[in-house]
């Protein structure tokens, strides 16, 4: 199952997804992480600039990732009860 690397930006708390070279607030920009995931995670933890970094399971394909748990789907899409605050790259309908 593909895995994505995610966390929250220290300065703002914003949800972020690893794109392979940088961070994006949109899950559609994320790249699947292979065996290097744990090493990347360890680097992030040591750098202390991304809070709560984690590898999460997803289904789908690049550009159309869907996290497997409800919690991560909510993180990716925004609160299901505030469509006006949705992040735009994942519909709250998938929650």
């Amino acid at each position, binding site marked *: 199952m593909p895995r994505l690397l995610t966390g929250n930006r*220290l300065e*703002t*708390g914003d949800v972020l997804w690893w794109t392979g070279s940088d961070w994006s607030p949109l899950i559609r920009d994320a790249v699947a992480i292979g065996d290097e995931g744990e090493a990347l995670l360890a680097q992030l933890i040591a750098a202390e600039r991304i809070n*709560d970094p984690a590898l999460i399971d997803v289904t789908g394909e690049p550009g159309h990732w869907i996290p497997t*748990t*409800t*919690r991560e789907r909510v993180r990716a899409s925004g609160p*299901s*009860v505030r469509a006006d605050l949705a992040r735009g790259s994942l519909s709250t309908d998938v929650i």
Partner: protein
Amino acid sequence: MYRYDQYDQAIVDARVAEFKDQVARRLRGEITEDQFKPLRLMNGLYLQLHAYMLRVAIPYGTLSSRQMRMLAHIARTYDRDYGHFTTRQNIQYNWIKLEEFADLLDDLSKVEMHAFQTSGNCIRNISSDQFAGAAADEVADPRPYAELLRQWSTLHPEFSFLPRKFKIAVIASDTDRAAIQLHDIGLQLRRNDAGDLGFRVYVGGGMGRTPVIGSVVRDWIPVGQFLSYCEAILRVYNRYGRRDNIYKARIKILVNELGVEEFTRQVEAEWAGLAPLGLDAPQAEYDRIIAQFAPPEFDPAAPDALDLSDPDFAVWVKQNVHPHKAPGYAITTISLKPKRGIPGDASSAQMDAVADLAERYAHDEIRVTHSQNLVLAHVRKADLYALWQGLDAVGLATPNLDLVSDIIACPGMDYCTLANARSIPIAQKIAAKFEDLDTQRDIGELKIKVSGCINGCGHHHAGHIGILGVDKKGEEAYQLLLGGSGAEDATLAKILGPGFDENGIVTAVEKLIGFYRSARSGPQERFLDTYRRLGPAPFKEAVYAR
């Protein structure tokens, strides 16, 4: 209302300066998140699913219009134009940025507000009766005593690292509008035959993972000695409360393990040593604080009659207006549960509107209720119609207090990192099923309370119908509980049977209410009373029978 003196303000200013420095050090990378996390939690700052969440303290739920306008300003300036009023009579903001936090704290402190002790293992915001100072059935205004507790517990060096969080509520009437029996300490102010004031003291109540109704450890402690008595309770807890297991760390577990009698004996022994030490406030301090809660000057000529010719207004008055102790005045509750709304949420424009209306019609004072509504406690009956029109103009005149759509719901998994399931959509779906107001009024008083996890911020254990979100292999599921009450007849709701998915729990609630309407002895028998009369079996049959 209480106004800060130089010491109160100095404490806040010093603490704000200290935390601003800690934030700056974290942003510069000088301290790690592991080091910073306990510091930010002590200042009410959480990291939730989408962003930082800030919980601002509203002592005993009382606000001035000036303070409410600042809360609106914070929503507009630092958040996404809304706030969420909580079951602890506080307010939470869901989209706070750490890099803007210093300015936010400065703004809050300008109106005698802050966010410390809204998290962490300390004494949390003191809660009280939203009708305090206005209720006809109270023996005195309980808030001066809540304020004394606030001052005593603020940065109390001995009680800043308790085994677990600690919640205290204070009321002054036999009707319990603050769920005191479900608090770590519940205090009921009473008057004896000699006319003296004293407290009945409950200890060891609580919801969460292990729900317990509090026990009376003392039926009478004179008001002049209640602070030292609370100190004795906290000392016994601090000394013997478990620190080895977070799930066993609340005082209710200690009371249960020792037994009420032994716990009480230890408190009394501790208090015998403390009482002579002069820890209690001198009478002059009581007098100073009580004077600040003096009731407004009520107009003795205020007319008592009400023109109820507007039917919509009449419905609102019947549902959301309560008797006031002064003739010609009324207590009004502003529902924050509008159709298709989010329980407890208010926009900055609504907060500003309530501030304006409170200034104009309610002696500049607003209360937050543990049911996530607002109260204007001192309104001339002659002003009620204008007030209602003003509320209606900003979507705040929903006449559903204590009805099926007046649902308590925690933020749940739409926001909260601890949650196992979403709460708000469940509340919205249930409310939508019973949108018709006549139907709601026919059903009568029904308190539905939804929590997104076992921590119980949505008070599901105290719901006539309680709903608890649980995790089922990464997906949301919901348990159904019945028969709880947070009032003076406090009881704990019990699980009815197997859980449901999101749609199933809504259907189950529909079935429960349908059965209740068919089985009640008459229109005056509440859902809770029918449940108590018949027991769970027929309700279970109504929900689960194929």
